[in-house]
């Protein structure tokens, strides 16, 4: 084999930022797979661009080292390193590296899908279906009802949860409902109505979403959490205790004269009440997590709900 000038000394690549950009791109791509396709696409583009720049640099650097126009001092024929270090990459080193490298590759091929199977399912297909709470006629105007329903019919009983529903009447022909989740935004315990719950007047409605229990209640003192004493007013605003914001609410829609609950969202606070309430609405965040104020910076990214 023809000996090329420069082969007798190590060819260190010049310092470069491209690999860093490439790594950032790959991370964006992986995070994006979980969070959103836009982030994934941006990550893929970043990785492609920086990967291309990196490869181009490496290739052009090698060409410079071997090309005839090279003006580096090593090309004058004299070895730049002593003779006894000349054999820098003997066969044993190669075999050692190949064993470790192949072992790592096989290990990664086996481990990564397995770990992913443990972690990924919790992040995909988490969108919950709307829940039909039955005919509007069951909701007397101005009266709070404790509605208990199965959030996810496939999962059955385990997904049962409650919401506090109040018909605010309609303004300009547009019906208004207050649909408050009963999950305390401190740590997720079920808040209770602060006042009588009329169990005897409870009725079970068979709607398109299985059985829904509707129990009239008079939460005169708002809503109170039995676990750690969080207290909320009738609009779900925090008035005492450890919670960091107002109670979550459900989106709602009227479909064929039925009340249908949609996705849950988080609420920083509610100004006013009933139909005229101004709701400071945010994407759903877990209990105990701030959605407004400087503390919201602690929870910049939410997994899909």
């Amino acid at each position, binding site marked *: 084999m023809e000996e090329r000038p420069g082969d007798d000394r190590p060819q260190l690549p010049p310092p470069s930022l491209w690999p860093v950009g490439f790594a950032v791109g790959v991370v964006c791509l992986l995070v994006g797979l979980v969070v959103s396709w836009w982030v994934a696409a941006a990550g893929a583009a970043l990785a492609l661009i920086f990967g291309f720049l990196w490869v181009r640099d490496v290739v052009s650097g090698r060409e410079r080292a071997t090309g005839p126009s090279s003006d580096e001092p090593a090309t004058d024929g004299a070895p730049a390193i002593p003779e006894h270090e000349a054999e820098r990459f003997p066969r044993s080193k190669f075999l050692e590296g190949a064993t470790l490298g192949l072992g790592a590759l096989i290990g990664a091929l086996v481990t990564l899908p397995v770990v992913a199977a443990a*972690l990924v*399912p*919790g*992040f995909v297909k*988490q969108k*919950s279906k709307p829940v039909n709470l039955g005919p509007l006629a069951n909701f007397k105007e101005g009266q709070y009802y404790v509605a208990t329903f199965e*959030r*996810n019919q496939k*999962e*059955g*009983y*385990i*997904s049962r949860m409650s919401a506090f529903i109040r018909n605010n009447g309609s303004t300009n022909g547009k019906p208004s409902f207050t649909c408050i989740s009963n999950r305390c935004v401190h*740590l*997720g*315990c*079920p808040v209770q109505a602060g006042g009588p719950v009329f169990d005897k007047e409870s009725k079970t409605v068979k709607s398109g979403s299985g059985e829904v229990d509707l129990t009239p209640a008079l939460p005169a003192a708002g809503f109170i959490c039995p*676990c750690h004493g969080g207290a909320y007013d009738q609009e779900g605003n925090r008035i005492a205790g450890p919670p960091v914001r107002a109670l979550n609410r459900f989106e709602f829609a009227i479909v064929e004269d039925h009340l249908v609950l949609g996705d849950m969202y988080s609420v920083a606070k509610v100004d006013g009440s009933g139909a005229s309430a101004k709701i400071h609405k945010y994407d759903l*965040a*877990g*209990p*105990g*997590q701030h959605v407004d104020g400087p503390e919201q910076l*602690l*929870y*910049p*990214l*939410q*997994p*899909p*709900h």
Partner: protein
Amino acid sequence: MAVTSTKKRGKLEGAAMYPLDWLEERSGLVGGIKYFLFRKVPGDTSWWHTLGSATLTAFLVQLVTGVILAMYYKPDVNSAHESVQHITHDVWGGWLVRGMHRWGASVFIILLFMHMGRVFLFGAYKYPRELNWIVGVLILATALFEGLTGYLLPFDQTAYWATVVAININGTAPFVGPYLATILRGGAEIGPDTLARFYSIHMLLVPGALIGLIGLHLYLVVRLGVTSPPWSKDAADRPPDPEPSAPPRSGLVQPAPRAAGVRRRPSE
């Protein structure tokens, strides 16, 4: 008469020792166990030094009772609670095994903390044993995680809501919290997967990690030796340990006199 009885005795001893010798020749296990059991410890070790092996015993009780409970427990949201009632009321001795596992869990954690306190107050975590302290802290964290995941399994109201709260506490950790909570739940809400996931973590993943960590912990205990208590007069004016020069001891239950003067007999 005396001669024949000695002969017989020798024959018997030979017959008894033969399997052990066979094993020793092929594995070195007998020597290893002898080394473990008859290694040097300071002469003034006290009852306080037994807290570590007490903790180990509590862990072994959890292992054995847990295996038996797993034979009758059903990690499914519709039958988990019933199967626990079945274990408690119908399975012969089930109440005892479940009780041992349930209360033994607390005993294990309490002993862990007592052992940790002993090591701290005796200064036994100092050079060269810092690494073993670190491993011990990992064992503590892993054991607490066992407690967290095991608490859901009876699947009654207490179990459910305590787990809701515990997962949401994890969820409030900055930045990673929401993801941590989703990973623990295996979804956006507690569902059927959560129970099966906690069961798997509780009986496969974490016990495996604990066994590995305890193995490392014991290896370091044997390698580094046991510390004297802080009030030890022995340790105060003991010359540094000489290099081990004595040959391996003979005899399974009767150790030969020790080489270094850790525990001198009056006759010597």
